[in-house]
């Protein structure tokens, strides 16, 4: 079945009109319209985040986020605007082998365009929803996110700990009334 599916995508990609089959959609829209898009071929674009779970069955599972932070990570100084918007994606292992590090604290993950079949409450996976990917295009490579030490927090914290130690040393002796019960 998987091979038939891949063959279908291969055929689709061979013809210029093929991408017209895939509906380009934002993940927020996908989540809102999830039941109506079940079984449809769709394209979503966003950052791969978290982990690459190669399960040894020919598939790799990860999460694709399509939100503000894809283009403007908080580490770059953007103001926070709310939670992430992401979906689970299942990618054939051979397509995922050379991807950059997934997004996280130290990295902005690769931005990819994924085309595949939207599985809403897939009966074969007891009701899970995810995109079964047929093709993957890297739109932008991942990159390292910079950070530095915020010195005032280090100095203030160390100073307070030293002060706490000094105060602790002057604490009064307490009698048996404070013993364990």
């Amino acid at each position, binding site marked *: 079945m998987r091979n038939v599916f891949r063959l279908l995508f291969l055929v689709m990609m061979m013809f210029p009109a093929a991408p017209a089959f895939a509906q380009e959609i934002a993940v927020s829209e996908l989540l809102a319209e999830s039941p109506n898009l079940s079984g449809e071929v769709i394209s979503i674009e966003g950052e791969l985040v978290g982990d690459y779970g190669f399960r040894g069955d020919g598939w790799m599972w990860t999460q694709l986020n399509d939100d503000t932070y894809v283009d403007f*990570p908080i580490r770059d100084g953007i103001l926070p605007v709310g939670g*992430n918007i992401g979906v689970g994606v299942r990618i054939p292992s051979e397509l995922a082998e050379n991807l950059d590090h997934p997004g996280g604290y130290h990295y902005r993950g690769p931005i990819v365009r994924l085309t595949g079949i939207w599985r809403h409450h897939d009966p074969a996976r007891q009701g899970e*929803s995810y995109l079964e990917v047929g093709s993957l295009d890297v739109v932008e490579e991942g990159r390292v996110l910079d950070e530095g030490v*915020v010195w005032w927090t*280090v100095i203030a914290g160390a100073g307070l700990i030293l002060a706490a130690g000094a105060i602790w040393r002057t604490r009064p002796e*307490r009698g048996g009334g404070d013993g364990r019960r």
Partner: protein
Amino acid sequence: MLIRPIAEDFRLIALYLGRILLVVAAAGMLPLVWAAIAREWDPFGSFLLMVGILAFLGAVGVRFGPAEPKLDWSHGMVVVALTWLVVPIIGAIPLLLSGHFVSPLDAFFDSMSGLTTTGLSLLSDLDHLASSLNFWRHLLQFLGGQGIIIAALTMFAGTGGITLYFGEARDERILPSVTSTARFIWGVSAVHLVFGVAALGLIGWLALGFDLDRALFHGLLVFFAAFDTGGFSPMSTSIGYYHSALFEGFTALLMVAGAMSFGLHYALWRGPRRAIFANLETKTILSTFGFTLLVTLLGLAATSVFTTAAGLSRQGLFQVLSAHTGTGFATVPTAELARWGGLAFGGMAIAMALGGMGSSTAGGVKSLRVGLTIKSVVNQIKQMLLPEHALVGTGYYQSGEKHLSPALTQSVMIISLLYVALYLLGAGVGLAYGIPLQESLFESVSASANVGLSVGVTDPTMPVLLELTYMLQMWAGRLEFVAVFSLIGFLLAWVRGK
């Protein structure tokens, strides 16, 4: 007449609060070390600052506390209520400095949500959060679920330990002394920690194909949130991130373990095990879980949300279990949960409102109170139907034969009614802001019962008054009101006393 507290009262409260802050400072060293190992230098600085503030305030409290401390009931309750306010305030510092929150109040909200094991969150871009900060959020849930006071009691109890213990909504002393009870609770948790993290880590590594370090990271954080029925998750898509029935299954086992009273854990460990199913609390929770599961599944089936029995049972079972244990994990997106209407909504809301067992890490009304309330109502009906002089049995079994006295009935009814009032309070404020009744009620119950499931009302753009209401609900719901009322009484006495 209210008696105005004197300087000695404040010094006594400061001493015990100081000791607890020192314990939290010690716990704060864990994410500090984590940040250093993970080379997360920005959070490293903010953790150092947090530990410094905790240690400083703790040392000041201990330094200026009375030489002969003797903690009575009211002081103990005030200490507990203050602890659950001060710790989230200071614990919010690293969260705020991370840049992942719109305002300081939002960071405080998350910290309070973590400590009270609620799980509602206003954090932006969780998927890029530093691992040490994510660890801290989950550690807050562990500290809150086990009870910070329990941690402090394990180290230095002092007189008044029992007051502190009960103030933190623990209503049974498993072993003769409070200190040994506290140690037992930590012992149970430590065993679950080792096996839970190992199991989830191995599943992550071997079945899900994560790198070993990441598998252990997920295992540890999910363990904290599951066993302490907290509901924070390492990734924004909650447990749905893992796409694994096996991972969900083990997580569900940990949620059940967390929602069990530590008295039941004791019985499971040391026997007699036969008595477990005779307990009113066990019977009640099994009945209410079965009922809410049935209602939710019928609702989902009627609206064809899931088209197969396997999908319906796996997804429905996990969500109801998460709601009833007060955990708040989800395997479906918030947008989808918000679409669950009718019976499915009703089943989930009732499951959240009822909550887990007493003296567990779960929130809500709690099963024993539900069981006793039902028993009282049934007794009343029997009394009305039977001849005037007929006697209705008032006994029930809960770790031994017990008598349902009028005083106990009154106490149970009062707390249960207070929970209902708390649920309505948040729903009312939500309605006042134009949020539909269903969403308002769901989110309010979720906050008050320390569950954390959300239909999208909890958001950085939510009104400040609603945010403050949810925080009050989380705080009062976790402490089961008594300590909160004691603090209010203490403040009133300070202002208006003579």
